[in-house]
């Protein structure tokens, strides 16, 4: 019969071997010290040079070397690999680099660092190679799509619109970049296809928004603002506040203001124009009482001039519709001016004022 002590010894040896072979957990400070290998600088510099030179094959080889370099502490190795992978994002890949990045995506971090969030300790890998390599592949996809789209735009190839609708998020980012970098003269030809695609509900909003912005195409921009996806509409709201859109800004923003998802952003954008655009100012007052009334009230409060405050006070005192009055009251509440405070105080002390509304006046103006 074997001695149990022998098994205890075996267990201890196995556990020790297991611990030696497995990931190590340490503080970040310890990981930093462990990564300070004398070879780090030269190997990191080489990766930088290879990336800068666009040497995909060389970078692939260098990544393989760093992965296998004997005697390199895990934190140093992983730091080098991580930096090298990130650098690969800017390199036109060849098959070797693609393969190397794919393989590194499966690299299991051997260095874990602890975090101590609010007294609850847990560990995280020093580097997440899955996330990093995923990012690189996305960047490559984006770059490739940018190049393809640039060629299509230069060639006037209308199929680029349908391609965009089917593309991945990364590919769309690349294609939109290509539009932003293309001469406006290349782009007008795509307007009918984009209008049609938007009519059909195709997800080409970002493409159309970029084309409309580059060509100052009011009709296409109107379509994006009315029917494009929320992200495209939001981006376009920012775009059309530019002075380059001149007198078109207000009517375009009014189109966007009707939407549930981005309407408030459009109304607040109208507020920024209202100081100089009477149409915008009138729109905001007309919006009081409507669904966009709170946003209109906020926009008017941001203007903050006495004339606006006086008009809001008048609405509060004279209108009968409760929603309209509440929005006017909100506008006065949001205004930082003494004039607005006085208007609210006067309202609160008006015996004719409905208690339901007076209750919304700040208490320090009611007393």
């Amino acid at each position, binding site marked *: 019969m074997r001695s149990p002590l022998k098994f205890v010894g075996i267990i201890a040896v196995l556990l020790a071997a297991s611990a030696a072979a497995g990931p190590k957990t340490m503080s970040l400070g310890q990981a930093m010290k462990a990564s300070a290998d004398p070879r780090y600088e030269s190997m990191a510099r080489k990766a930088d040079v290879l990336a800068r030179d666009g040497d995909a094959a060389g970078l692939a080889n260098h990544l393989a070397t760093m992965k296998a370099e004997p005697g390199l502490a895990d934190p140093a190795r992983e730091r080098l690999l991580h930096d090298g992978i990130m650098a690969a994002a800017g390199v036109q890949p060849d098959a070797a680099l693609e393969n190397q990045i794919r393989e590194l995506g499966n690299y299991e971090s051997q260095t874990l660092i602890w975090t101590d969030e609010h007294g609850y300790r847990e560990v995280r890998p*020093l580097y997440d190679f899955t996330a990093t390599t995923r990012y690189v592949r996305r960047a490559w996809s984006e770059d490739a799509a940018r190049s393809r789209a640039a060629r299509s735009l230069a060639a006037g190839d209308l199929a680029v619109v349908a391609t965009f609708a089917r593309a991945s998020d990364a590919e769309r980012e690349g294609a939109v970049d290509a539009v932003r970098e293309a001469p406006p003269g290349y782009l007008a030809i795509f307007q009918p296809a984009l209008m049609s695609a938007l009519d059909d509900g195709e997800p080409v909003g970002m493409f159309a928004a970029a084309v409309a912005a580059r060509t100052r195409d009011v009709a296409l921009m109107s379509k994006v603002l009315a029917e494009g996806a929320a992200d495209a509409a939001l981006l376009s709201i920012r775009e059309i506040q530019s002075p380059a859109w001149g007198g078109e800004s207000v009517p375009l923003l009014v189109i966007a203001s009707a939407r549930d998802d981005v309407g408030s952003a459009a109304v607040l954008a109208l507020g920024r124009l209202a100081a100089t655009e009477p149409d915008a100012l009138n729109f905001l007052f007309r919006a009081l009482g409507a669904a966009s009334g709170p946003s209109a009230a906020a926009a008017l409060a941001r203007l903050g001039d006495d004339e606006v405050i006086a008009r809001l006070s008048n609405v509060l005192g004279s209108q009968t519709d409760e929603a309209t009055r509440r929005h006017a009251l909100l506008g006065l509440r949001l205004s930082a001016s003494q004039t607005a405070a006085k208007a609210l105080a006067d309202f609160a002390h008006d015996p004719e004022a409905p208690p339901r509304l007076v209750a919304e006046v700040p208490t320090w103006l009611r007393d």
Partner: protein
Amino acid sequence: MGVALAGLPMLASAVCVFDDFGDIVNPDDPSCRDVQLTYTRNDNTGNNIALGFDVPIPVDSLTGIDGFRSYQSLHERHQSLDAASTGVEGVIVGQTAAGRDIWAYRIGDTNSSTVDGVTEGAALINGTIHAREWQSPEAVTEVFEQLTEIANDGGFGQYLHENFNVVIVPVLNVDGFLQAQRFPDRTTASELQPRDGRMRRKNMRHPSSGGVVDEDIDLTADNFYGVDLNRNHPRGFGQNGGSSNNRISLVYRGPQPQSESESAALLAAADLGPANRLRMFTDAHSFSRIFLAPLIGDNRRDAITRDLVSVMRSVLNGKYRYGPSTNLIGTTADYFASTLRIPSWTLEIEPLQPGDFGTDHGHSGFILPDSEVARMRDEIADMLLAGFYTQAGKPALRAARIRDAETGEIRYDAAWVAEGAGRRLDVGINRALVPGRSYRLWLGFNRPMRWRNAQGVLTNYRGLSVPVFPYIRLQFPALAATSDQTVSGDALSWRTAIGEDGVVRYSDDALETGFIVPASFPAATPVAMIVAVDARDITGSRLDADPATSVNWSNGHWVGYEDEDGSPTDLGGTDCSFAPFVASDPTSPAPAAPDGCRETAVTPPTTPPPSGGSGGGGGASLWWLPLLSLAAVLRRRRW
């Protein structure tokens, strides 16, 4: 989030040096202090940091968008919700270090009693204590918006509105948040521990002057300063290694507990509950998808906390984790858990890991892509609303009625009515149920018991799983147990409208089903019957088995919440208070009512969410697996 230590410096220019705790040891070194970093989508060269997605820029919009709103428009949104309804009370609860107003909003009806006449409970949510955690104000604003939107829905939302108060501080660290939004794509110092601008964590307190640091990110002399407002509270202040007395530390706790005006403002917000009625505290942070819950050694309170977190985690099928801790370090959650003995946690909103949506930059988890924000808001709101419902009260039967299915005649009608501080059972009608006849059983509860989707279809509240039909057992204590019968759910109907045998007050707070007293039933003499009801509400709470005492919250646990034995509990039990009878002669007088159930009728527990786990880097937590294998080998071996 605390010291988010992940990732090593990748920039040759970044030479901040750290001690083992994570504090920078060379803050006056220009090569650390003056480093300016810029976030980009893809450019990782020089002092740029590629996120892998477009850098979110605050948008002016009162309503939620796919992205982050500016502080000003968030504030305007809160004010608009306040001005639109008497059910919202906005209060300035204090000022920041720079003198800006800090607002809190109490959402709920204007009285302080539930519809049952009990004092209403309350929850407090703190948002944006850490400036860079932009998920927080978006999430808590969504909660605010949803509470006001559903206040008149006739069901779940109206119940919360009429029976519970929610106090929300959307942005506590206003100065810091404005600073972070002022520089949405810039930060300073080190990629490993970025500090000012987008990555500011602390408030803007200058430790020497007592005033505030400047808002110019390029004036770097004071960029490291500020107090970590989530280390500034007395319970655990300066203890357990969770904070630092180093004024440049990311987790500098301040000169003394609650030294900061923002901390005082949070206490003032709690008073809106008021504080003695609070039953739940959430401090919304990001990131790492976890409820970090301090345990205080009060078994009942700690168990309630665990179970409540379990409910909320189940809403999202265990997407969020549970992180209990006994090490108090001066957080807001530590404070409310200890002083008020209420379920409290630091809710770290997504992502789970820094690289979930882009690059694996150690601090990129603080920056959620615009495209994820709307979904995140909805998920957090759904979780917290489930928590409010669970803490607003406990389910109880209020009334029962039995009609002859054919004639519609009421054969039994009883209800709990208020009497003094409690209730008594008022049995208005109690006529014999006759063997061989069919009956309709109507049961009225004190709260909405079931959830409907937007199309009005009964369904689970997201990931929560509650059987549509309660376990209803007709017991005859005077007979053998084999005489008892379970009421089938085949004819079940949850009520949604007022009317005969309709809702009590809220949609789905009443049900109707049918049963038959078998013709063979031995009822020559009147036989008392118990309607034993074991029902779970929307989030899985069982019934208060003794409605005579009102359920309330006190000193870290429920009171008046009994099981079927009448024992005080935090889990409830089976209601056995309604006692009709069966007799062959329909004119027979009622026998004496039995004393409670024959047996405990327990429904299976709801499925708990998946285990929390340790998140990323799970390898370290698996060290024991080889040991298990070895143990298995050793068990099989004989020697």
